[in-house]
């Protein structure tokens, strides 16, 4: 008769075998995680180590490409290549690959902060951040909109130190809606704590103290800020309030940001926004189901899309840059130029218009640059972009 050991003995044996297996396998796996020498890259039998190392090489390469080929209205094949390569790596099940992505993101933010203090004498500079976040800078002011760190609260993409650097340079933070993809408590508190103005939906963080402006739902509001006039239009994301922001930078240009706008009924008044404001740059989320109607309603000079590659989303909902390119190509009939940007990049609007040079591209009215400020010439009279007659 065969003798079987008792259950505790069997469990003990299994435990010892398990520990031995872990002790044996772990060092081997760790050894394979990196090549044995720089000259002898070998990943045989270790696909995960291969993919990690590939990402470690690829992200810096993408960064170099993006720096060499910056945002443009007509991006050449080099820039398109860089963006689709980025899409490829961000649509990997493990996009981070042992923090290769984290390093990339930090590098992109470092590039932005390196250049953010460069003097700006004319026009508007627009920096793109994570999701729908932007920093908008003119010679007179700098504001942030929908600034969120991304990632997890214990491991955000945007580091606390980068947030501090951004807050130090901004006069105000504007939050369009309550969705956490657009609103971040920690960042709002940092702004308020530094004495910076925070403009946010009225029901959001009611205990936030400081220089706070609360925006009521379904009410139109205009706020005077240093260097700009902020028009808040009562949009919606479904049934939730969403402020569409029209930022008039006192002659430097007018920038509109649509937040998380997604509501068919609102299109009725969005259709006519261009009759009230002369929008230079429209910042709109790429996946908006009404993108065509929104662009038609705003009639901007340039569209900059946002909210690509939201990494908290599942793979299929991480809107890629190549899909934005296709989308915008399909809207080419609108004749509105577009710029596709990624994190940490800047695009200058209005800086290239020489003083007193006339640009007749807008048809019935003419855009004029004077002393670095854009004006509209209509029926012989000169107006600011906000419609104020200056002569």
């Amino acid at each position, binding site marked *: 008769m065969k003798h079987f050991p008792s259950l505790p003995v069997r469990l003990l044996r299994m435990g010892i075998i398990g520990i031995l297996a872990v002790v044996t396998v772990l060092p081997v796996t760790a050894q394979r995680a990196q090549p044995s020498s*720089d*000259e002898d*890259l070998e*990943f*045989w*039998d*270790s*696909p995960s*180590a*291969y*993919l990690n190392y*590939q990402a470690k*090489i*690829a992200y810096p*390469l*993408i960064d*170099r*490409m993006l720096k*060499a080929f910056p945002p443009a209205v007509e991006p050449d*094949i*080099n820039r*398109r*290549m*860089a963006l*689709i*390569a980025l*899409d*490829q*790596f961000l*649509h*990997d099940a493990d996009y981070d690959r042992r923090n290769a992505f984290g390093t990339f993101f930090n590098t992109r933010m470092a590039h932005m902060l390196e250049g953010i203090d460069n003097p700006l004498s004319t026009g508007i500079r627009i920096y793109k951040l994570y999701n729908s976040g932007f920093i908008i800078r003119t010679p007179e002011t700098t504001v942030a909109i929908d600034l969120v760190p991304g990632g997890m609260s214990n491991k955000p993409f945007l580091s606390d130190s980068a947030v501090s650097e951004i807050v130090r340079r901004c006069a105000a933070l504007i939050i369009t809606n309550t969705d956490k993809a657009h609103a971040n408590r920690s960042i709002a508190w940092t702004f308020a704590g530094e004495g910076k103005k925070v403009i946010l939906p009225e029901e959001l963080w009611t205990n936030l103290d400081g220089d706070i402006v609360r925006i009521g739902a379904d009410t139109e509001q205009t706020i005077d800020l240093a260097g700009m006039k902020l028009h808040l239009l009562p949009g919606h994301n479904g049934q939730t309030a969403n402020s569409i922001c029209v930022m008039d930078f006192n002659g430097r240009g007018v920038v509109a940001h649509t937040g998380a706008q997604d509501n068919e009924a609102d299109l009725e008044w969005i259709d006519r926004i261009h009759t009230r404001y002369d929008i230079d740059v429209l910042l709109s989320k790429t996946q908006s189901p009404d993108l065509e109607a929104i662009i038609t309603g705003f009639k901007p000079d340039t569209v900059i899309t946002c909210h690509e590659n939201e990494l908290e989303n*599942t*793979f*299929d909902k991480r809107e*890629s840059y*190549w*899909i934005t390119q*296709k989308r915008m190509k399909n809207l080419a009939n609108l004749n509105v130029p577009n710029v596709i940007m990624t994190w940490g990049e800047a695009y200058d609007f209005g800086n290239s218009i020489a003083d007193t040079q006339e640009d007749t591209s807008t048809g019935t009215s003419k855009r004029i640059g004077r002393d670095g400020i854009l004006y509209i010439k209509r029926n012989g009279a000169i107006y600011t972009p906000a419609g104020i007659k200056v002569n």
Partner: protein
Amino acid sequence: MKHLILTLSICLGTAVCVTAQKSEYKLGQAETAFTAIDEILRAYRPATEIPLPREMALMSLDQLLHDTDNDNTEPFYSFINNRMLQLLTDLDRKVDKGLRIYKLYNDGFIVKSPKATIAIDLIPGGSAAKPFITDSIVYEIAGRCDALFISHEHADHANLNIAKSFAARGKRVIAPKGLWVGVDPLIQPMELENQEFDVEFEELDLTLHVLPGHQGDIYNNINVVEFHNEGTVAQTGDQWGNADDLMWIDRVHEKYDIDVLMPNCWIDQMRRVIRGFGPKLIITGHENELGEHSIDHREAYWMTIFKMDKMSDLNIPNVLMTWGESYDYRK
């Protein structure tokens, strides 16, 4: 029970739907990426210094080819066939002086001189039912070549249908010992064992020097092709793991003046082999072998860049090519 079945059905339906969306997304991404890669590769041709966009395109290609979701998909087939069609068109371009070297799938190369065009280790890739390079393209390529040299018997280097296609057109095929014996008088497996030998191609103005290499215990012909007055190329097949061979490989440069060495990118002791051949230029082969290989052994272009960069102290330039590309070499 009904609730359980309903819940399971919903879960299954959702999973199927998400998988389908993911699959559709990836197909679209692959199609867009392959198109961009092709455009970049045509704009930035192979050179001893790799411009940044070309390096990016090769990295993007590596990423696509190391994602098994892209295996056997329409965008991949379209890409590789398009590259082969470009090669086919380019093969008709005359070489006035020196050598034009084309890279094909795996370790396949075509070398063209003013007087001859030879193929080495030409295979279609993929499966017999669905080859990467279609039969019609392979047939056209064979038609433009004058001879085929095979390094060893493995299917990723030797394809009998292609050999027969050469023979059917009256072109010689030089194979390693024991391969395809008696198939066709023009398919000529060498009979010498572990000995170096020469094959003259007077009409092509070239001499083939076959060096008796091995992949482990398997015969692996190292084909040194001397195009008289134009240059000499050496293709090492899958030379691997034979210490005795390394002893004579160390001295190859004493006997032959090698212009271009075409080693397998994962060759054993690459630095020693390069020193042994002492070439003026290196063009690696065998990157991104798909098919049965798992992703950890689909040697990437970025790995070759990395390896060659580490050997920059040898002061031998290298050119990294992908499928269908060519590089003009002059002495």
